[in-house]
């Protein structure tokens, strides 16, 4: 019996080895290990054996069964692997063909700049405020210390809708509105991005519609040195950590002292080039300490509160930062222009 089992094992393993597909392997399994298979038969005939032989042969039969099963499993794995390899080979594609294009959208360059500036000031604790574009003469001019007949106020520069309504020429009315909203007794830290309008003929450097971002900080004991500190931080974050700023005296009815703020030219690193007209500096914004008349008109006591304000043209910043040479590009929305500035 022992010989018979050993022969069976050899025979079965022989058949396993020669199987070349999963079906024939399955046939071998059924033939040798099935209920009607030879090993089962051997085990059935065990009754004839002596009690001493029974466990020995039983053990051997199990070993043979296990050996055949292992051989079957191994062979099965091999065949499956081969089948998978074959399938993978069939599935191969030409990876050098072009990919399926994904439609690329993106933000307008002005939006990118606005959001960048917003994020910088949000980080410094400013909130973002908005206001109407069709503004009253009062908020656009008078509340900003520009009474009727003021030399700095020229009707030719504005688009009037009625005698007392006009398209705002600056975003500063949002500051006046916010001061009023805050009732003269709360600190204010705000920026207001928005569209403004001036009576200019559109050309490479003028646009009848453009975008401003202005900022306002009103609190007890605000100093001009704070304005310098905030603008330095802002300029370095926007234009680069090695930038310097300088203030030049200027005039805005809304603020006094008023200054224009220059940042060192990034093209020449302050050495002087065509972009900065050989000065090493580029003007980026206007700023100043909020005029006491403005504070008073908006309900803040200038004895108790002081503040600073600043404003910049977004197109100008974009033109400086990205070297855009014509302001009209921002409004014609040529797809070839817009898609130049998408990071994605």
């Amino acid at each position: 019996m022992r010989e018979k089992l050993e022969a069976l094992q050899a025979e079965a393993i022989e058949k396993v080895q020669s199987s070349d597909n999963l079906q024939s392997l399955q046939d071998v399994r059924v033939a040798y290990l099935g209920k009607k298979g030879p090993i089962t038969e051997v085990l059935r005939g065990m009754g004839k054996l002596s009690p001493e032989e029974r466990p020995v042969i039983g053990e051997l039969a199990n070993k043979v069964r296990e050996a055949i099963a292992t051989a079957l499993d191994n062979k099965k794995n091999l065949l499956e692997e081969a089948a998978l390899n074959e399938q993978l080979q069939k599935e191969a594609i030409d990876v050098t063909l072009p990919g399926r294009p994904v439609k690329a959208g993106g933000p307008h360059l002005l939006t990118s700049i606005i959001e960048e500036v917003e994020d910088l000031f949000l980080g410094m604790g400013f909130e973002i405020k908005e206001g109407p574009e069709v503004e009253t003469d009062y908020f656009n001019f008078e509340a900003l210390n520009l009474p009727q007949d003021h030399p700095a106020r020229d009707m030719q520069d504005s688009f009037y809708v009625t005698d007392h309504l006009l398209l705002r020429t600056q975003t500063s009315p949002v500051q006046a509105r916010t001061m009023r909203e805050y009732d003269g007794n709360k600190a204010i830290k705000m920026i207001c991005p928005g569209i403004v309008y001036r009576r200019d003929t559109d050309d490479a450097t003028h646009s009848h519609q453009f975008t401003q971002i202005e900022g306002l900080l009103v609190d007890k004991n605000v100093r001009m040195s704070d304005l310098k500190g905030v603008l330095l931080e802002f300029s370095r974050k926007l234009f680069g950590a090695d930038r310097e700023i300088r203030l030049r005296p200027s005039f805005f009815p809304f603020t006094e002292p008023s200054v224009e703020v220059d940042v060192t030219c990034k093209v020449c690193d302050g050495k002087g080039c065509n972009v900065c007209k050989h000065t090493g500096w580029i003007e980026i914004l206007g700023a100043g300490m909020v005029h006491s008349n403005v504070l008073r008109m908006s309900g803040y006591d200038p004895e108790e509160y002081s503040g600073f304000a600043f404003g910049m043209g977004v197109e100008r910043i974009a033109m400086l930062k990205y070297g855009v040479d014509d302001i009209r590009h921002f409004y014609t929305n040529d797809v070839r222009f817009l898609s130049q500035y998408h990071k994605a």
Partner: protein
Amino acid sequence: MYVSLNWLKQYVDIDNITPEELAEKITRSGIEVESIERVAPESTNVVVGYVESCEQHPNADKLNLCQINVGTETYQIICGAPNIAQGQKIAAALPGARLPGGVKIKKAKLRGVESHGMVCSLQELGIDEKFVPKDVTDGIFVFPEDTEVGTPVAELLNLDDVILELGLTPNRADAMSMLGVAYEVAAILGKEVNQPEETYQTSDSKAADLVSVKVEDAELNPYYGAFVIEDVTIAPSPLWMRNYLMAAGIRPINNVVDITNYVLLVYGQPLHAFDYDKVATKEIVVRSAKQGEKIQTLDDQERTLKGDEIVITNGNEPIALAGVMGGANSEVSDDTKNVLLEAAFFDARAIRRSSKHHNLRSEASARYEKGIDPNRVQRAGAYAARLLAEYAGGKVAQGIAAFDELDREEKQVKIDTASVNNRLGTTISDEEIASILTKLQFGFEQDNSQFTVFVPTRRGDISLFEDMLEEIARIYGYDNIPYTLPEGEAFAGKLTTKQYLKRQLKQYLQGAGLMETITYSLTSKKRTEMLVSPDVSEQAVFPVKLKMPMSEEHSHLRLSIIPELVNTLSYNVARKQENLGYFEFGRVFLSNEEQITEQPNETARLAGALTGTWMEQPWQQEKKPVDFYVAKGIVEGIFAQLDLGPVFQQAQVDGYHPGRTATVSLNGKVVGVVGQLHPTVQKAFDLKETYVFDLDIAYLMDQYEEVPSFRTIPRHPSVTRDIALAVDEAAHAGDIQRTIQEAGGELVQQVQIFDVYQGEHMEAGKKSIAYTVLYQDPTRTLTDEEVEASYNNIIENVKAKHDAELRS
């Protein structure tokens, strides 16, 4: 304001500083120097020559053959200028000379005759033609007879002068004069200001006997002074004066007029010279104009007066538009003998109104309207009288015929060191403040750290603490102010929900493949009448119209973003960019008044426009054009971002394709539109199939719930049932979907369309729509009975409402 440095030198010492350094200092401490220009730096070897003889060129009618004596030698020079003549002293560029523009003078032969140089016009020497005296614009410049032959003309014509162009802000009217600039420079450099000599000899006549002065309204004209200068001789003004005027951008005319302009530039005080004999009444009456009254001004324009101008009259009729321009009827001319010189102070606002109304700006009005120094009015008049005596041979009558109610008091401003430092964030000492005030030449009284400043009347812009603060800060130097950060409570700012949503929506649309645009808010009337979303047009709204538009193209504020987007598509398609998807998040302006009186409603809209191919994969022959469902899918995505459920309904909207357009509603309210442009609109914009959407995003964002209520994550299995229906081909899948949702009851979580079919296996005029209904209760497992009941109710309802048949 143009500032000649040679001229400025007479009032302040600037010898030890280069023009560039000076310009930098001026810019950094108060007034922007916009340019630094040399009059004509390149002119060399150009000298004064005497025309010994001047004959016609033997071979050319229009050329002259001249012998020019330059002192050491005589040169033969051929000259084409029509005004050259024997006996003149002219500018001769000798061989080897260099002229502006890189011109080099060499010996040359002109029509067979040798020419050893060139006789120059002022333009050829580098002076801007618009400042060149009118009588010599077409010819050469003739020097005065007493000019020494051989003198380099650069010296005589101030060609080596440097001109600074100052960009003056409206508050710095004080710098609209050489003396004002001198004070500014003196403050920066710590120097003194030299004043002009204003004394003069008088004749026996008395001004008050020669003319009477009457002013009707002292508010408008608090001071009017009339000097009388008799027996003047009209001639060119001295060369140095002409040079300065040209450098300042004023064309020389004659000695009398030039002197008034010169003095205006020195003091910032406008003066006007009348021909005394033409003021026949010997009377000056200053009054408001009468409405409809006429005057012919010096620029030969007849002007009809509005009524609020100030006019100078002779008692009967206007002889000058006060502070703006003189009248032709009293103009100084070549035969003027006696001059009435006006030195007056007019109300700034009145002059501004007058100048603006007549669209007439002059050197005088530019100064009056910004405010002049009350303490310089008479001084300027006196200086002019002195010059008229010296350079026009006039005899100055004694005294001034004047009306005088002028306030010449200096304003007082109190400042203290602590307040200055608190506001600037500096540690300036009392001594430094005193030193700055001294540099500015402001009078002051000091009591330790308390200062009372007596502001000179030349600085009309200073009356408040912060005006003084600015003066101190700019002279102290902004560079010397430290960098600090605000001391107030520090906290991080945060976007509001709507600001956050706006960014989120923009990002979603970019991810969906759309490009953001920003278009103009101002548009044409025609465009306000097209492609207005039904939710806007159903309200009674009117576009906002500008009072004085610059063009028809930009005359109204938009009611819709769509026309601008469509225009943008059109612009790009015309440039062969044909596959486009755009969106804009912008405002529209809706007024409910036909004649606007109140601010309009400005509301945010989110609009998009798509045309061309949406997806393309050339080597797989895949090309999917934009269609309605692409646009609709984007709109659905927008709603999903806001966690809102839109309802789409077929609609007829002006400008849209009647069969491919839907209104978009939320909570039963129309909030926008999505659809294809009507083919006629497409054609008008040269576009192929174009799909757009336009949503009242302001309203949608209002509906967004910031903190959505918690939804239990389902732990119990869901059950699905498929329903295939045969319906009329015109039936709307969405309507049936809503019926299923409603009839199905609370357990229905979702109804999805998974197949739409029409054709072979369907009866004509019918189509099949298949839905999957998903049932679920997050808290328990559903029973077959309740699902069955819901299902049966659905079938009953769709049969009844949509005439649907159940397909097996």
